[in-house]
C-alpha cells in the first residue's frame, strides 16, 4: 500500500471519528433544545481537534515506515486519482448545498440547517476518499 493510500485511509478514519464527535451530541442537543450556536461551535472545535490529532499521528506513523515516498511529490497517477476524487467530492458538496437551499425554502429546517451543511461537507470528503481508495486499488 502506497503512502498516499495509507494517508487516505487515515483521513477517512479521522473524518469518521470527528463526525461522530460532532453529530452524536449535536443531534441530541438540536432534538431537545433546538440549535444552540455555542454548543455547535464547541462540538465543531472538538471535532477539528480529534481530526487533527488522528491525522498527525497517522502521517507520522506512515511517514516513518516510508520516508522516501512521504517526501516525494505526487506522481502522475496519484495526481489523476486525487483529481477524480476531488471532482466527485465537489459534486457531492454542491448537490448537498443545493438540496439544502431548496429544502430550506420548503421545510422548517432552521434548527437543522448548520448540522445539515456540516453533514454535506463531511459527505463530500468521504465521497472524495471513497473514490480515491477505489482508484488506488483499481487504477
Amino acid at each position, binding site marked *: 500500500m*502506497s503512502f*498516499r493510500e495509507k494517508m487516505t485511509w487515515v483521513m477517512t478514519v479521522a473524518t469518521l471519528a470527528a463526525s461522530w464527535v460532532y453529530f452524536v451530541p449535536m443531534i441530541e442537543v438540536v432534538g431537545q433544545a433546538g440549535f444552540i450556536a455555542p454548543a455547535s461551535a464547541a462540538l465543531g472545535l472538538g471535532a477539528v481537534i480529534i481530526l487533527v490529532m488522528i491525522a498527525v499521528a497517522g502521517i507520522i506513523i506512515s511517514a516513518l515506515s516510508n520516508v522516501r515516498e512521504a517526501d516525494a511529490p505526487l*506522481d*502522475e*497517477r*496519484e495526481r489523476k*486519482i486525487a483529481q477524480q476524487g476531488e471532482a466527485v467530492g465537489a459534486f457531492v458538496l454542491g448537490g448537498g448545498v443545493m438540496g439544502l437551499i431548496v429544502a430550506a425554502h420548503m421545510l422548517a429546517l432552521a434548527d437543522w440547517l448548520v448540522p445539515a451543511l456540516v453533514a454535506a461537507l463531511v459527505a463530500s470528503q468521504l465521497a472524495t476518499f471513497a473514490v480515491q481508495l477505489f482508484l488506488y486499488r483499481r*487504477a
Partner: protein
Amino acid sequence: MARILPFTNRVRELRECLGLTQADLAARISMTRQTVIAIEQGRYSPSLEAAFRIALALDRPVADVFVWTADGDDEVGKIA
C-alpha cells in the same frame, strides 16, 4: 482508468532483464512502486512523458517497450 488499454507493454520483461526491481525503476522515473505495478499490469496508461522516461530507464526505444495491440477495426491500429 480501469478500461482495457489498446496497447500492451514489456516493462516487466525488460526490467527483469536489467535486474531492476519495481522500486528501482520507480526511483529512476520518479514514480511510486504502485504506479510501476499498475503500468506493468496494464491497469494504468502512462503519459507520453512517463513512457519516454520508462523507455530511457530501460535503455530501449519507446516502441520496444509499448506495443499497439488494438484490432484492425481501429483506425489508429490500421496506421500502426
